């Protein structure tokens, strides 16, 4: 009898605990590493009472595999352009009801109607940037204006490449004069061979660690995303950033709601919150990346707003393109990149 009572009591306790957890609304957010001002999340929790479960990924591919194979459910994710295209193609995203995201009005027109989501149905732009070369002026004597310098033996063991397949393949493809979105097996193979030939000169293949290493003076040249460059240049005056003249990649990371999201209304609230001017400014200041909002940009410091690394002119980006998704080409890129890393 006593035993039964104990069991009954513990069952009631367990049930009441789960009850508590259910009372509080939960929002699951999946974002890039070092890509938000964490205080923003506290503010959101305070203002809405919704608890934020925040997780991070390293690359688009990493995120995609977790989402498509891991059977996990997130409410808001921050993929890049080509990955959004892929997720739309594969029916992984749901349309966002923009009536519930009134701040969408703040987004600058250049970030709307882009090829991966032509009717702005699935994605809300968050931050954008370019890919270029971050270099240390005290260690590099040549002019840095071309991808060629990454194959210059003078800088052997002083070069960092991105451990991100599309970005590194892009560098090699453009250097060869091909499109960064090529679907030609022969061109992909040539790019692969070029990267393999470069390997002895490369010090490391990194993603999030590049910034700190370049600030320390660990390497002379690195392929980085523009926001990393902005943040690094603030910490070390010897650093400079250039978008190579042959062209490069430009990208925009957007907020999307996956099909299997459990809390769509909270997701919409969160997306709208992230577009608020004060929040945009906080995130821009923390991450170094460029904001997509035309109203928040006015609130940035003047230096920041005129920073050509963060906000390059259209002319500087004239040769830059977005990545595009193509299912067959993805298989080629995967294979080529595996061969580069394995060699």
């Amino acid at each position: 009898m006593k035993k039964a009572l104990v069991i009954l009591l513990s069952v009631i306790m367990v049930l009441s605990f789960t009850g508590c957890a259910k009372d509080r609304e939960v929002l699951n957010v999946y974002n890039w590493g070092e890509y938000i001002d964490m205080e923003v999340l506290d503010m959101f929790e305070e203002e809405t009472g919704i608890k934020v479960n925040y997780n991070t990924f390293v690359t688009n591919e990493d995120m995609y595999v977790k989402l498509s194979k891991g059977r996990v459910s997130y409410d808001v994710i921050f993929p890049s352009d080509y990955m959004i295209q892929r997720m739309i193609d594969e029916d992984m995203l749901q349309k966002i009801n923009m009536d519930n995201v009134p701040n969408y009005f703040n987004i600058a027109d250049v970030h709307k109607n882009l090829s991966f989501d032509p009717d702005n149905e699935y994605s809300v732009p968050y931050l954008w940037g370019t890919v270029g070369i971050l270099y240390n002026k005290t260690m590099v004597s040549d002019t840095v204006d071309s991808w060629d310098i990454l194959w210059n033996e003078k800088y052997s063991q002083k070069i960092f490449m991105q451990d991100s397949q599309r970005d590194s393949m892009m560098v090699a493809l453009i250097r060869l004069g091909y499109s960064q979105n090529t679907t030609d097996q022969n061109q992909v193979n040539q790019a692969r061979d070029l990267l393999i030939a470069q390997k002895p000169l490369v010090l490391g293949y990194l993603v999030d660690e590049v910034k700190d290493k370049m600030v320390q003076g660990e390497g002379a040249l690195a392929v980085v995303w523009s926001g990393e460059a902005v943040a690094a240049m603030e910490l070390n005056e010897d650093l400079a950033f250039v978008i190579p003249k042959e062209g490069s990649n430009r990208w925009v990371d957007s907020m999307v709601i996956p099909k299997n999201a459990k809390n769509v209304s909270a997701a919409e609230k969160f997306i709208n919150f992230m577009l608020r001017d004060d929040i945009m400014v906080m995130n821009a200041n923390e991450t170094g990346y460029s904001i997509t909002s035309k109203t928040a940009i006015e609130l940035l410091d003047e230096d920041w707003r005129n920073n050509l690394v963060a906000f390059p002119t259209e002319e500087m980006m004239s040769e830059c393109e977005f990545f595009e998704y193509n299912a067959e080409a993805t298989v080629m890129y995967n294979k080529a990149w595996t061969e580069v890393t394995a060699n």
Partner: protein
Amino acid sequence: MSKRRFAFPYLIWMTIFIVVPLFLIFFYAFTDNASGKTLFTLEHVKAIFQPLYLKVIGRSFYMSLIATLVCFVMGYPAAMILASKDFSQKNTMLILIVLPMWMNFLLRTYSWLSLLENEGLINRFLVSIGLGQVQLMYNNFAVILGMVYNFLPFMILPIYSVLVKIDKSVVEAAKDLGANGARVFLRIIFPLSMPGVVSGITMTFMPALSTFVISRLLSGGKITLIGNIIEQQFTITGDWGLGSALSLLLMVLIFISMIFINKYGDESVGAGGLL
């Protein structure tokens, strides 16, 4: 009957956490659902026998063998010192060996980064005393160092625990019969410690062969071991079939090496007993 009942929880545990995952690896390695249906396929298994992967496997074997050898050369004397009865600092030293294992493995490896980097502590010291910068990281040396550092305790402790238990009267008998120190060691102590050596080698070689964190961090993502390729299949390319097939191959190779090591170990114990 009652013993059986006690074993039951372990049985469930082993089923859920060992048998099921193993089955899943087999399942993914031999099936393909690209067409939407799950079909049996040998494609993944065929794919792993490319020169590219064999090269990476070769590299992994090479580096983990060196690491194991270094661990053995460093670990055996350490275990002997620990086991000798006139060593008074035994407990302190044992704690010092075990202590790093209380810290997170990633944290320990990260801290090597700040030591070995080109702008790291060691290089700053070398530059400040007038010696030039030496590249300590981003190469094989760093990866092997990381393996040795992380797995050395797993070599020392099994050997130590066997050495401590060796019957001292056997050693005394050998000495009484006129054997000198070297002879006692080669003919008595070393053969008797063989079980410890075998498990020490097993416990350092296996994790070294399959590691991907040490190689990625200490080589700056430049040196790819088989563990990295497998990880890449699961996290980046999403080719779980290939990843599982490579894991299977790795398991088979480890299994073969273990048979080899154990057989060799048994023989020397036998030989030691006969002599």
